């Protein structure tokens, strides 16, 4: 287990200066995520054009892995539709949970999360933002169907 592999420079940078941080006014949907084990909390807001995320922001308190993962996620999903986001999440999940998984080039900066797989107790820190985004997207879908 190499600490530098977990806390890569990209992770430390996004923890110190999270991108797309702060509430998104006039968002189409939002969801709150909570990891009761460590107390991490975050809120994800999304702006949608049909199925496509046109803007996304988040806010919350969490560990470096949780904050950096959320920050990287917001950068990665902006402009993608739900199917592409789901596919991306599956790639990230494989990276986080499979030992020695080779990061696919299409993951871009998200590949910096590759060290997490050596620290199983931290996987949930990295996935919290994705579950929260998923809840926000489902909520927006639910809102559409009730109209």
């Amino acid at each position, binding site marked *: *287990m190499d*600490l530098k592999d*977990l*806390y890569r420079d990209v992770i*430390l940078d996004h923890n110190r200066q999270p991108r797309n941080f702060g509430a998104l006014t006039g968002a189409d949907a939002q969801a709150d995520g909570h990891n*009761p*084990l*460590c*107390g*991490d*909390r975050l809120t994800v807001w999304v702006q949608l054009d049909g199925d496509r995320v046109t803007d996304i922001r988040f806010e919350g*308190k*969490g*560990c*470096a*892995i*949780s904050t950096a993962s959320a920050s990287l996620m917001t950068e990665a999903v902006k402009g993608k539709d739900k199917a592409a986001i789901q596919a991306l999440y599956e790639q990230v999940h494989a990276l986080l949970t499979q030992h020695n998984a080779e990061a696919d080039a299409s993951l871009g900066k998200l590949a910096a999360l590759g060290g997490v797989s050596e*620290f199983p*107790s*931290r996987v949930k*820190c990295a996935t919290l933002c994705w579950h929260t985004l998923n809840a926000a997207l489902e909520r927006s879908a639910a809102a559409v169907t009730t109209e």
Partner: protein
Amino acid sequence: MNAVSAAAAPFDAERVRADFPILAQQVNGRPLVYLDSAASGQRPLAVLRAVERYETHCHSNVHRGVHALSQAATEAFEGARERARRFLNARSTREIVFVRGTTEAINLVAQSFARPRLGPGDEILITGLEHHANIVPWQMVCAQSGCALKVAPIDRRGEVELERLLELLTARTRLVAVAHVSNALGTILPVKRIVEAAHSCGALVLLDGAQAVPHTAVDVRALGCDFYAFSGHKLYGPTGIGVLYGREELLEEMPPWQGGGDMIRTVTFEKSTYNELPWKFEAGTPNISGAVGLAAAMDYLESLGIEAVAAHEQRLLALATGELERIPGLEIIGTAAHKASVLSFTLRGCHPHDLGTILDTEGVAIRTGHHCAMPVMSFFDIPATARASFGCYNTEADVRALVAALGKAREVFG
């Protein structure tokens, strides 16, 4: 123990450490530095061997059996009960109920004592320091019976505001349930004072002793409490075994909590009659080897001397507190005047969860999170803390390893 004999026999933590085989291992390529005894203590060889001896030579089901092994098991189990009685200085083994742990003990009192006799207008008083196990069972009773839960606040040092607690004690208060020692912050509560005040209002008192028993000799008669609960595994004994002490008159009046074998005298389809104390509260086959291990842990701790252990832990706490206070950005959470050897803290710019991971890579095991005390975290407006806790086997070298590992964390997150 007087000062002379204490000085004559200095506490030899290195020798104590050698009694705990688990501590001899490497973690992540570093010697293990175990600073998580407040979550669970490790077991000395004396406990491991007592359990092995029981399992190898004595095991069968307890009570009722006429064969040799059943008698040996019964003697071992009931012998452990007598050991626990002596440990707490209870009057009688009828007052010693074996349970899974502190949580089950408190739930037993909640459901069997509080629920049948409390109702609207009655109050249960707890403090802002409590572990979830001393909050949620009372919330359940409140929902079931219509009584109300009151909470005595704490201050910024992590001490219970005693004046406020005394104000909240009224004729409506039926039960006061407080920690003897706070698990999240280490605060030692003035429980004798609280017991006296509660009794003068006609309220009964349950003490959650989970964090107290490894650090202080408990005399339930001197404390005057009505119920006392603790777990074996915080006391260097096995998991899955604990003790509920209850005053005999109270236990006698309480209905059984769980029904089943062993807790009955006679059963017909029309009606069953219940066994006498303490077995009335022990439905089903108990954790026999756990009780045996717990008794061995009590023997072990008393052979070291609880006062000598506590004095040693206080030295480590003072040393660690002084060292950590010097680290820039580090804030100690919980600075009560009287503390057990628990050191909760935060480090600016480094979430406790990250701290825990970094320390682990250095072989240093600490606890990070809310420590099952979310209201304490809310009070200090933090999501979590890092918590180092010291036991009888910890040494000054362990404190130095903690400080060095914190330096590493500051490097990573500097």
